[in-house]
């Protein structure tokens, strides 16, 4: 009897351990692509890279909930849906990707080993072939998921060879290295490679920090040499977008939606608590939820080749 009791205790402790150190949800924005960006929310020990002047770096896990990770993954993926590039949270997908077409973005609370900055990266490291990671430091971003996603997208841009989009005056003198879209106060748009936090940030064609004489087309550089990522084929974009699962009707305790394929789904509240999970079939589906689950909830779904998420105000 005592022996069984010990086994039960050990099993419970193991389950607790697995739960505490649970990995991020495994998400892929475009599984068909070889070129891969791995969002690492799980913490890492980094050694043998240009960041290791002072030795081994222990990066703590992000501590973000599955719902927040899913939401951040979606925000970042949306910026790359033009490209033949997979944004993944799955380390195994990263390991399988071509060595000169992959990068890892470590999203971790503390960047004090480098400095009080929102993130740092080596420009063009996507093709270096030595797994040099880039960094996003959450504490410097107030742990705000929107800012974390914007900063991660900005760092991914750097690893793909992009310089900052800058602002110059009429004489070619740099006004600011990081453009925030100031040149048009009537516009709500800003370059992702400038300050992407306060306006609707997008890839831009503009003058980079290397000089007013240069033109940097963000999208052309991401897709072209030396990354050789390319663009998604026409028609695939819509199949992989949020349109794949469309919410038709929303009532307390029920969600009615149309699914473009067979997917598994999970529904979380904003704190990351799993509300319900199951499978969606092609066509009409109804998900029953707790009627008292009000506020913001996140629907995460995934299939063989695509996955996504939607924020729902209940």
């Amino acid at each position, binding site marked *: 009897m005592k022996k069984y009791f010990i086994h039960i205790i050990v099993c419970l402790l193991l389950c607790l351990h697995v739960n505490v150190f649970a990995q991020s949800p495994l998400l892929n924005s475009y599984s068909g692509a070889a070129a891969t960006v791995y969002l690492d929310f799980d913490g890492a020990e980094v050694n043998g890279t240009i960041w290791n002047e002072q030795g081994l770096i222990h990066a703590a896990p992000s501590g973000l909930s599955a719902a927040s990770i899913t939401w951040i993954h979606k925000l970042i993926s949306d910026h790359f849906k033009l490209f033949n590039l997979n944004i993944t949270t799955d380390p195994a997908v990263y390991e399988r990707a071509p060595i000169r077409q992959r990068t890892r973005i470590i999203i971790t609370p503390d960047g004090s080993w480098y400095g009080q*900055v929102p993130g740092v*990266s080596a420009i063009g490291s996507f093709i270096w072939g*030595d797994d040099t990671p880039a960094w996003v430091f959450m504490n410097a971003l107030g742990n705000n998921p929107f800012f974390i996603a914007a900063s991660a997208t900005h760092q991914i841009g750097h690893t793909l060879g992009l310089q900052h989009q800058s602002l110059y005056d009429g004489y070619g003198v740099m006004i600011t290295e990081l453009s925030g879209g100031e040149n048009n106060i009537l516009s709500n748009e800003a370059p992702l490679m400038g300050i992407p936090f306060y306006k609707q940030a997008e890839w831009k064609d503009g003058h980079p920090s290397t000089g007013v004489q240069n033109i940097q087309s963000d999208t052309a550089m991401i897709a072209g040499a030396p990354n050789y990522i390319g663009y998604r084929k026409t028609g695939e974009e819509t199949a992989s977008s949020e349109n794949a699962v469309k919410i038709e009707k929303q009532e307390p305790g029920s969600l009615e939606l149309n699914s473009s394929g067979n997917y598994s789904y999970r529904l979380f509240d904003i704190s990351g608590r799993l509300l319900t999970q199951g499978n969606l079939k092609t066509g009409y589906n109804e998900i029953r939820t707790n009627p008292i689950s009000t506020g913001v909830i996140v629907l995460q779904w995934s299939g063989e080749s695509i996955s996504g998420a939607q924020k729902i105000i209940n």
Partner: protein
Amino acid sequence: MNTLKTILSGLCLLCSLLLSAQEKNTQAELPYSNKIEVSDRALESLFLAPENISVELAPGFRINGKIENKSDHGNSVISILIKLNNTEGSMLSISRYKDPQGIIYYTGHLLKLHEPDGMMLVEKDKRYYFIETQQRFLVTE
């Protein structure tokens, strides 16, 4: 006839200007303050050197240091990271890769974090140069 020639010449000039403008849209067009040519053979010797390394890449440009890391991905890409003794704390990261046709290329960076300048290995017309440039063009926030 002369008018046609003038128009054609103008068009050619315009095309070449457009092409040269497009060429600027590459990472290799970094502004630099200094450049040092290094031979393929010198670069290759870095990959053959023992852990404690001392290689002259070009006259007056010697690499003294210790190999901190070496990764080999099926022989198509080999990367080494060298911590330099002669420029305190600097790291030389260099990769050698072979394309499907068997042609060998090198990429590399010589950096010390938070310093104003760094170096990048660039290839132009099948020749390699270490260019000295502002580090914000190589490592940035």
